[in-house]
Every structure is written in C-alpha cells, then in structure tokens.
C-alpha cells in the first residue's frame, strides 16, 4: 500500500496542456495507491481543478513571478492543512523557485525530486546547443534573439523554414522573415525574452520521457513517436516504440547531464540521414506521461517514492504500439467550487463537497 499526501502543480489542461492531470492520473492508476492528492493551482480557472475524481483538495499558490518567499509561506500553510509529504512540480517556469526552496521544504518534511538550478540552466533552450556540441550529440543549429530586427541579421546563418521558440513554451515554424517577426512578437508577449531561432530539420518527431533518481541513475525511460502535432508544437496523439538506438542516446544524454528527477527529451529524426537530433530537453514530465504509465512505467509514482528515498516498484517491459489520442471534454461544476477558490483560495472536495 502506498499512502502519502502528494501535491501536484500544472493543472491547466488547455490547448497547451500542463502535465499535472496526467501525473495525478498515473499515481492513481496504481492499485497500491491509497494516498491523498492535493492540487496546487495558480488560477481558480485552471481546468484540472474541476476534475473531482482526481483531486482530494485544491489550494491556490502564488505565480512564480511573485517569488520564492511567497511560495514558501503558502506551502507551509498547505503543509499544515494537508500534511503534504511530496510535491511534484510539473511546469518549467516554477522549477527554479522550487529548486531554491528545496532545503527549506525538506526542513518541514516536504520532499522533491527535481534537478538543481545549475542542471536546469545546462539544458535550457538557450544553452542546449552548446551542451550538445560539447558532448557530441546531434543538435540543430540554434541561436537567440532579443529583438525582431536581429532576425534578419541572424537569418544569414539559416535557411528557411526556421523554428521560432519561446524560452519556456511554444514553437512555430516560419517560412519568411515577416512570419518570423509575427511569431517573435506573439511568443515574447506570452513568455518574454529571449526568443530562440532553431534550424528546421525535416523529419518525424519522437519524444522520450525519463526519470533519474537522486544519484542520477536512470530508473525508467519510454519513447514514443508523435502521430499528430498541434500548431503550438504539442503532441496530440502518439504511439510507444521500442527503438533501442533512441533509448541508448537518451541514456547517454542523461548521464552527461547527471540529471535528477523527471524530464522529457524531444527529438527529430532527419528524414535523409535517419539521425536523431535533440530539439529540446524539458525539465519535467510531459503532458503525455500517462501513455508511459499505461505502457508499463509509472514514472510519476516512482518520482513520489524516490523523493521519499523509498524503493521503487519494478517496471514492466514497455509495450510498443500503445497509442494515445487527446480530446477535450467539458467539466460541469457547481458555482460553489469557484466561490471557494476565489474567496478562500482552497477547495476541499472530501470535506465540503461529497463526491
């Protein structure tokens, strides 16, 4: 029996879905799970909050821009109310705050399994190119721009099309300078600067989700091919595969990074050379992580156990050919849910709202 209280962030499952909901689904998928799930949301309208089959309690927490001190104060309050043992942060933008707070959280018996700030910087979109070049991994040529006027200058190093990416999220493919500038402004408005320009490599996209323990040992890894991709570059359907070449490459990357915690590696397989190019490393679970769980590796549950220095359950061999297809549904809920979240910043499904 696994009986802990776990807090999970990233509950906003919109067209750029945060991974919190599939992380919770994974944990609850285990027949051994008897614990409590606490949703940690940034906004009263984060969509996952309203799925009361998944959550026992929900608490609003301050946005990452409000700083780590406010976050710590709120987490201490939540610890007092819920007895939370572990937090699984699932958003790129919040990880630096959590990494800085890790020692403080440990003092109040709240545990994390996340990389250090140094490791976060090593795989950042702005530094990934250097990391790959230094360690001999194939990577598309990448550069950063701070203002639209730089795009035309930098394009002397590129051929169109070019990928335009935000420092945290979103990716578009531009075929002209004008189009690149439009995407630059769109991403800047949402995610700030810098903006990343990346060489476009024609080929199919593959992702690997993996988990490393506190000693940077790889505990599990699942690969999938993207079957359908949205205009924001998000996988909307995918299928598990068993490509040892891709998994070995992923493990080599993880060894060089000396990683701790979950992460996602995004690759493109060059249609001419069949070589895998590393496009991005995301320092958290991907929103398709439930596919990995159903394919035999419950990495979110293992994260919870490893954060507490507990032994993990042995993983089954990954089943290739398992497919996920994402679709949106409407959650209908009473106004009281919204009332409690907006007035008190918390929603207790078990106590105040019987399921």
């Amino acid at each position, binding site marked *: 029996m696994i009986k802990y209280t776990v807090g999970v962030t990233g509950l906003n499952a919109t067209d750029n879905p945060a991974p919190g909901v599939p992380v919770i689904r994974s944990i609850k998928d285990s027949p051994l799970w008897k614990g409590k799930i606490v949703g940690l949301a940034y906004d009263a309208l984060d969509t996952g909050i309203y799925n009361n089959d998944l959550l026992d309690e929900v608490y609003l927490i301050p946005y990452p821009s409000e700083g780590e001190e406010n976050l710590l104060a709120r987490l201490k309050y939540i610890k007092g109310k819920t007895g939370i043992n572990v937090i699984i942060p699932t958003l790129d933008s919040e990880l630096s705050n959590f990494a800085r707070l890790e020692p403080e959280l440990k003092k109040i018996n709240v545990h994390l399994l996340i990389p250090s700030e140094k490791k976060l910087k090593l795989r950042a979109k702005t530094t990934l190119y250097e990391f790959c070049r230094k360690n001999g991994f194939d990577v598309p040529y990448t550069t950063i721009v701070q203002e639209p006027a730089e795009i035309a200058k930098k394009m002397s190093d590129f051929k169109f099309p070019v990928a335009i990416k935000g420092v945290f999220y979103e990716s578009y493919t531009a075929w002209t300078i004008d189009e690149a500038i439009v995407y630059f402004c769109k991403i800047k408005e949402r995610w700030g600067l810098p903006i990343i320009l990346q060489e476009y490599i024609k080929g199919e996209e593959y992702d690997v989700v993996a988990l490393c323990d506190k000693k940077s040992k790889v505990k599990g890894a699942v690969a999938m*091919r993207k079957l359908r991709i949205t205009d924001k570059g998000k996988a909307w359907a995918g299928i598990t*595969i*068993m*490509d040892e070449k891709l998994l070995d490459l992923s493990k080599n990357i993880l060894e060089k990074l000396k990683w701790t915690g979950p992460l996602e590696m995004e690759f493109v397989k060059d249609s001419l050379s*069949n070589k895998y190019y590393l496009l991005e490393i995301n320092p958290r679970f991907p929103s398709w992580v439930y596919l990995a769980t159903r394919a035999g590796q419950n990495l979110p549950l293992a994260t919870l156990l490893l954060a507490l220095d507990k032994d993990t359950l042995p993983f089954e061999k990954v089943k*290739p*050919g398992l497919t996920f297809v994402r679709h949106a549904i409407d959650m209908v809920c009473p106004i009281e849910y919204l009332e409690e979240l907006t007035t008190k910043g918390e929603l207790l499904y078990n106590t105040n709202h019987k399921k």
Partner: protein
Amino acid sequence: MTVKIPEELNPTKKGFLFDPYTGHTYTLNATAAFVFKKLQEGKNISDITKVLADEYKLDEKKVLEDIKDFVMNIKDFNLTKK
C-alpha cells in the same frame, strides 16, 4: 536471394502491420502479407515466386518483378534488417 525481416514485425490476419521501432503502421493486401511472412521465414525470392505463379497461374517473370518491387518498398520503409 533472401531478405531478413525482424521477427517483431508481425502482420495481423487483416494485413495490419506495426513497426515497433519507428511507430509506423502499414496495410498489406493478402498477397503482400503472404510474401512478407515467407520472406520472414527465410524463404528465398525465387521459391516464393514459383509458389505464387503456380497457385495463381501467372507468368513467373512478372511475379518475380512484382516481388522485387515489393522488396524494394519494404527496404525503403526500413522494414528489413540492415
């Protein structure tokens, strides 16, 4: 001539084929599925040609050409062992 096909590539009875290495799927008609299975069993192309030509009363030369085309296709799709 023989062609090596990984044993993990198993067309279903309906001819649906999933490549677990790349995640690609294919549909084979009954004849293609038959040839695919025979190649996988290690039969050589001339033997498969003879069986098909005899069974369907076809010109052996034409059947051989078609099988060679098919083999080229599956090589293009990386469905054969390197």
